[in-house]
């Protein structure tokens, strides 16, 4: 597939897919790697932190971060740690509304083209250096210039200027109501320290402004954070956090039950009920705003017809898939945005109806004997499990499903080169409705691998992008979403839940739907 140079937006868009997808790591242990001891060059003594004063929270995550530079990593394990080390200008609260963080307040101009952020003063990095507007400019310029994985989020941004030490003005080419969620959605756009980046230490000894600073990192074994006493949001209660990497679900559960650890999210769905009853353990199951979908390649007959796509939507047994993949912990959803979100739209047209599916297939001119190349990936076992269920569902319709399981890098290649009939994947880390629909379903959307094109939908999505009135914007997205589902551009399946468990000694902790792991306000009773 020869690469030709394309407009920046599209290239950036391509980058977006990877960021979005890679963040999604099914907690049932995708490609995890527990590493072992051995003090290598990576081990670092905390820049600012010394020994943690006060109780240390022991957290077991399902895998080891590949590196600790928030702006270039795309591994969810890294963000589970970095959430507590870095800050963004703004950050989402429990119901994903953007709240002030490093930016105390902000206002937008009349025409909505200039955003002015007033920074919090008296904030220092972990190495003691002051946090100024220059750091914000440096951070964002680095993402765009080095074309890091989140560069596409600055698609509509034309300029970032530090008007003075505590003010940053961002100008955009068109009104972008989702700028706040882009800047603060997750720690991918964290504010970093220039010296820490240029010295290259950031990958193993990151320096941020967050509630905790990095004390020690022994690759393959553990990461230790220590509380940052001068944190602008008030010093954390607990003394520090000790992250260990436990990929094997049963081990993490056993460790939690006999008090070896205080918190873990390395829990295979099928072992959940063993925890529910256990005393001294609290289980948090909250629907996340990630979603899993099926997509048919509209470049190939008969999937270019709506009727054929709808037939598949009716043929699949959603309950079976849901049960087999998440053991009842996921929420069925025939659209992308979860119920808890303010942008939720009700939609449940499809049901498991073989007769309807048969009829729609006939309508689409499919006489039977069709074969489907199902593209699954071993990195996400859900796709392999669902594929086998769908294969058995479609068999009575005379459709034979050939399941092709490849590793994730090859999966991306095959998807982008259109070398598939049917695929299943998930998106994560979306907060604003534009993240959910634009890039995937707009005719020239960067992630429109299934080749869906409906001018009316394009119109709605373009309008919604610049619509500043929330009610009107909500209406536009509802119309777009229902049309997308009706025409089977995506066959949405479910919103997976965030599954975490922690000891009852841990107070003030809630499992968040955007999967962010925040320990700054928690308390830990001496066990």
């Amino acid at each position, binding site marked *: 597939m020869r690469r030709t140079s394309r407009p920046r937006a599209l290239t950036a868009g391509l980058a977006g897919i*990877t960021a979005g997808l890679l963040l999604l790591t099914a907690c049932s242990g995708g490609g995890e790697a527990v590493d*072992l*001891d051995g003090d290598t060059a990576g081990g670092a003594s905390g820049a600012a932190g010394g020994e943690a004063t006060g109780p240390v929270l022991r957290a077991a995550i399902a895998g080891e971060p*590949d*590196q600790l530079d928030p702006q270039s990593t795309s591994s969810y394990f890294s963000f589970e740690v970095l959430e507590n080390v870095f800050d963004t200008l703004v950050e989402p609260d429990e119901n994903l509304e953007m709240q002030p963080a490093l930016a105390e307040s902000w206002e937008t101009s009349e025409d909505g083209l200039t955003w002015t952020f007033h920074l919090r003063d008296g904030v220092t990095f972990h190495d003691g250096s002051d946090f100024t507007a220059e750091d914000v400019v440096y951070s964002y310029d680095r993402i765009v210039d080095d074309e890091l994985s989140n560069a596409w989020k600055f698609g509509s941004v034309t300029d970032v200027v530090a008007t003075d030490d505590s003010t940053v003005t961002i100008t955009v080419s068109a009104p972008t109501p989702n700028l706040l969620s882009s800047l603060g959605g997750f720690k991918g756009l964290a504010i970093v320290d220039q010296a820490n980046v240029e010295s290259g230490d950031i990958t193993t000894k990151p320096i941020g402004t967050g509630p905790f600073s990095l004390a020690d990192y022994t690759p393959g074994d553990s990461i230790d954070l220590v509380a940052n006493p001068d944190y602008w949001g008030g010093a954390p209660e607990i003394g520090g956090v000790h992250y260990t990497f436990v990929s094997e679900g*049963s081990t993490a559960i056993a460790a939690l039950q006999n008090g070896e650890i205080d918190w873990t999210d390395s829990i295979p769905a099928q072992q959940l009920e063993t925890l529910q009853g256990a005393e001294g353990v609290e289980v948090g199951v909250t629907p996340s705003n990630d979603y899993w979908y099926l997509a048919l390649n509209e470049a190939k007959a008969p999937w270019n017809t709506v009727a054929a796509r709808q037939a598949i939507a009716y043929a699949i047994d959603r309950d079976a898939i849901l049960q087999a993949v998440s053991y009842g912990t996921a929420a069925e959803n025939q659209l992308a945005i979860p119920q808890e979100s303010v942008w939720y739209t009700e939609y449940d047209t499809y049901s498991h109806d073989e007769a309807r599916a048969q009829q729609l297939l006939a309508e689409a001119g499919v006489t039977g004997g069709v074969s489907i190349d199902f593209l699954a990936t071993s*990195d996400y076992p859900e796709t392999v499990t669902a594929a086998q269920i769908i294969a058995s569902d479609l068999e009575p319709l005379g459709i034979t499903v050939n399941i092709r399981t490849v590793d994730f890098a090859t999966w991306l290649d095959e998807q982008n080169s259109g070398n598939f009939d049917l695929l299943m994947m998930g998106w994560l880390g979306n907060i604003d409705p534009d993240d959910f629909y634009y890039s995937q379903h707009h005719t020239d959307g960067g992630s429109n691998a299934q080749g869906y094109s409906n001018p009316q939908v394009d119109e709605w999505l373009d309008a919604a992008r610049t619509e500043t009135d929330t009610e009107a914007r909500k209406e536009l997205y509802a119309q777009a979403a229902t049309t997308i589902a009706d025409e089977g551009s995506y066959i949405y399946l479910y919103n997976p839940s965030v599954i975490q468990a922690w000891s009852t000694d841990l107070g003030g902790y809630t499992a968040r739907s955007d999967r962010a792991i925040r320990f700054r306000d928690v308390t830990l009773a001496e066990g």
Partner: protein
Amino acid sequence: MTLGGVARFLGRRLLHSLVVLLGVLVVVFALVHLVPGDPVRIALGTRYTQESYEALRAASGLDRPLATQFLSYVGNALTGDLGVSFRTGQPVTLTLLDRLPATVSLAVVGLVVALLVALPAGIWSGLHEGRVSDAIVRVTSQAGVSVPDFWLGQLLIVGVALGLGLLPTSGYAALSDDPVQWGRHVALPGLTVGLVAAAIMTRYIRTAVLDVAHAGHVRTARSKGLPASVVMRRHVVRNALIPILTITGIQLATILGGVVVVEVVFAWPGLGRLTYDAVASRDYALVQGAVLLVAVLFLLVNLVVDVLYSLVDPRIRLS
């Protein structure tokens, strides 16, 4: 004690190992270049531009003729630089050495378990050929050889770890940090590796002892009216030690290579699991490095066996 004999013997063995090592390097180097598709593109994944494609291609020297690439690869390998892992950006050598202690400690524990079982069983059944005890040992060792080690691991997890809740189902603690935890964690995987290896070794040791027991000098020993224990110890077992030494060497080397599946079952962070993850994520530099390292370990173990061999066997020491 003519050093000449031993020196010449070891010289030849060393030369032989170097030739084989060169062969190993060629095969390992070829591995990456057999990859269908372009390793650079696979390395970059999909977020790259034409310029960064060219840049990495030049940087990794993939545009130079194969021969020069091979020479620089060998040159680097000899100096310990095995390139950089595409996925983690860490130098391959570092990651490999990181994981080596886990695999080596598991292999050694496995070998110790194997020897503790195989030596007595093998020698006993070799000395009591045809008896009931010999038949029992033969059948159980035959069964042991046929057991898939990963299945045995799973059974131990279900039975011991989950069933009796005695030992952890998986995970690792470094020996240097916490011997007790290391002991608890290495128990089940060590047992899995050890039992399968024991079955294989018992069969070889039994044959070795049998061959010696039928040798002429054993009949001479019996004709001297020596006590049975002396005949066994000084004339049978002592001669059988030499083939047993070779068997132990080969078995240690085989364990080193074969622990992949056991490490996956027990989430044991050794070389085997590293290779498995590297293969799953197409991290070719890491796969290349791991295969090379294990092959080198293989040769080292064989060389050590040869050295011990020359010390134990007078026919070489004094030829």
